[in-house]
């Protein structure tokens, strides 16, 4: 009996963890030599030559690989790597990967965001280098560091640097356009309709703070990137904006207004419930710029 309860909880939670970001430190240590010269060492991985058969099991890493111009070196990506459209999506799994299935693509570099067990050790036993890039940034610098790592490993260090400059200048422009406010606007950023939300410590919290928005879910420690709030707390906090990261799973302005007691919320009454575009709120790569722009636009439209 208790096992079943455990299974159910875990299964429900898995869905959540899939969309939730994961807290803290960047995976740093990228030391790219001048130019694109190999051998290259990033973290634990040393590549003697430029990889030409990359397998990516991380949707975020896939977006980074293509953005730095390494797309034609990628031979297979996992089932959730749906962007960019030209990415060679396969039914490989990033959650429950099978090491043998990965080897059928004969990769010379595997990029993962999560090691479910001893995947890194197993692939290394087969002499396949693995780059572990956790998709849990908490700042833009974490994201830039990962792009740098990917660029260095694939022989696109210069493109990576240019991409980072482009991203940061676009973000600066969006931030510069955001109006000064005496009182910051507050928001609730919903991941799941069981009221799981990103906290102030998450990358979402960091980004939105840059354009003057304040999260109602304040993390009590930096590793707490998402939290399950109570409905009472949300109603009491009465946020100015509600952002729905789960719009792609059926939540909408209508379903939110229909929730018991939510119709009176400021955000609902003033039409400040925002359905976000799919995926950009869970892939912490080049498209964080799109997420920030979408939110900044929604805020300025509402004002």
């Amino acid at each position, binding site marked *: 009996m*208790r*096992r079943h*309860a*455990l*299974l159910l*909880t*875990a*299964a429900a*939670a*898995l869905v*959540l*963890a*899939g969309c*939730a*970001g*994961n*807290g*803290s*430190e*960047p*995976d740093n240590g990228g030391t790219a030599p001048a130019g694109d010269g190999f051998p290259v060492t990033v973290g634990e991985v040393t590549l003697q030559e430029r990889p030409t058969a990359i397998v990516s099991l991380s949707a975020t890493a896939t977006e980074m690989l293509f953005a730095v111009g390494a797309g034609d070196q990628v031979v297979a990506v996992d089932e959730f790597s749906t962007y960019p459209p030209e990415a060679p999506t*396969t*039914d*490989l*799994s990033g*959650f*429950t*990967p*099978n*090491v*043998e*299935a*990965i*080897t*059928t693509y004969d990769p010379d570099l595997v990029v993962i*965001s*999560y*090691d*479910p*067990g*001893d*995947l*890194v*050790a*197993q692939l290394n*036993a*087969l*002499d396949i280098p693995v780059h*572990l890039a*956790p998709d*849990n940034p908490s700042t833009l610098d974490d994201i830039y560091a990962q792009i740098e790592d990917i660029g260095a490993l694939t022989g696109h260090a210069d493109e990576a640097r240019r991409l980072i400059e482009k991203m940061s200048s676009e973000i600066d422009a969006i931030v510069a356009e955001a109006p000064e406010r005496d009182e910051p606007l507050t928001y609730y950023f919903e991941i799941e309709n069981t009221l*799981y939300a990103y906290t102030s410590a998450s990358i979402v919290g960091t980004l939105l703070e840059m354009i003057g928005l304040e999260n109602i879910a304040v993390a009590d*420690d930096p*590793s*707490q*990137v*998402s*939290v*399950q709030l109570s409905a009472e707390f949300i109603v009491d906090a009465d946020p100015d904006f509600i952002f729905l990261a789960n719009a792609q799973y059926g939540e909408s302005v209508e379903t939110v207004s229909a929730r018991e007691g939510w119709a009176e919320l400021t955000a609902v009454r003033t039409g400040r419930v925002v359905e976000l575009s799919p995926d950009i709120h869970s892939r912490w790569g080049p498209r964080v710029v799109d997420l920030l722009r979408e939110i900044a636009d929604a805020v300025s439209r509402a004002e």
Partner: protein
Amino acid sequence: MTHPSPARLRWRWLVSGVAAVLLAAMAGLWLGPVRLPPGAVVLEVLDLVPGLDVDSGLDDRQAAIVTRIRLPRVVLGLLVGALLALAGGCYQGAFRNPLADPYLLGVAAGAGLGATAVLSVYRAATGTAAVPAAVPPAAFAGALGAVTLTYLVGAAGGRDRSPATLILAGVAVSAFLAAAQTYLLQRHVDTIREVYSWLLGRLAGADWGDVRLLLPYAVVTTVVVLAMRRELDVLSVGDDEAAGLGLHPQRSRYLLVGAASLGTAAAVSVAGLIGFVGIIVPHLVRLVAGSSYRVILPLSMLYGGAFLALADLAARVVDTPREVPIGVVTAFLGAPFFVLVLRTARRVPV
């Protein structure tokens, strides 16, 4: 006992059990997402035997798939399956309860709490997504801690406590520890993915280190439980009868259950929670081969190992290239098979 039960292990059962283990091991080595010629796989394994030097014709990567990915996985599956089935049979006899399973006294909840605690603390401290090496020892400590707690609580019942007291203590301890684990998970939602994949069984990540970790405990548990198989037969009749035959029923029970719990804790710490093997395999053996523990225990080990190795094979091939959690496979294959045997068997002894 209304039927004559064979007190001795019959050769044909032993032989078929060993055959099942060999068959499962070979299938586990032959089949996988990567197609390899069966003959070459056999040669590659023979090449591991000291003194033998054969050329299998496999390239380095294919050879590594056989010897470093599949072989440790098969061996770990056999060991874990054997231990869980042995522990299950032992629990059922010691508690005279057909529903007893290896997780009865809180092993699962304790291991889960231990693993969750380490994963959340580690994640909060380092921010990395890797599963730290401290998880198996922590799960082991949690499992043993839980069983000890159950013993202490159960023993508080005094001299005339029945086996049921210990079971109830196990339920209470499990509920408490599961609640603590859930609370920890809620506080550290970001570790749920790791905790989840760890708990649901992780034969997928098997390596020789896991086998080395498990082996000493497997040996101790097997030796103790098999050495006490006659006591288990007496215990399964009743405490009064056991006392009448000059046994200390409670002492024997504690020793047996302690040994089984040690083995279960070690199995859980390397392989996560794998249900069903411990409850189904001993019952199947009992239905087919008789109700003496002198028969049930060794046969359960053989068939338990074979069953888990086969279930693990299914876990990696049915939904290729994904892995199916091993616990899902054991229940999915085991439950219908068990119902079939229950319906065709003439009697349901315990």
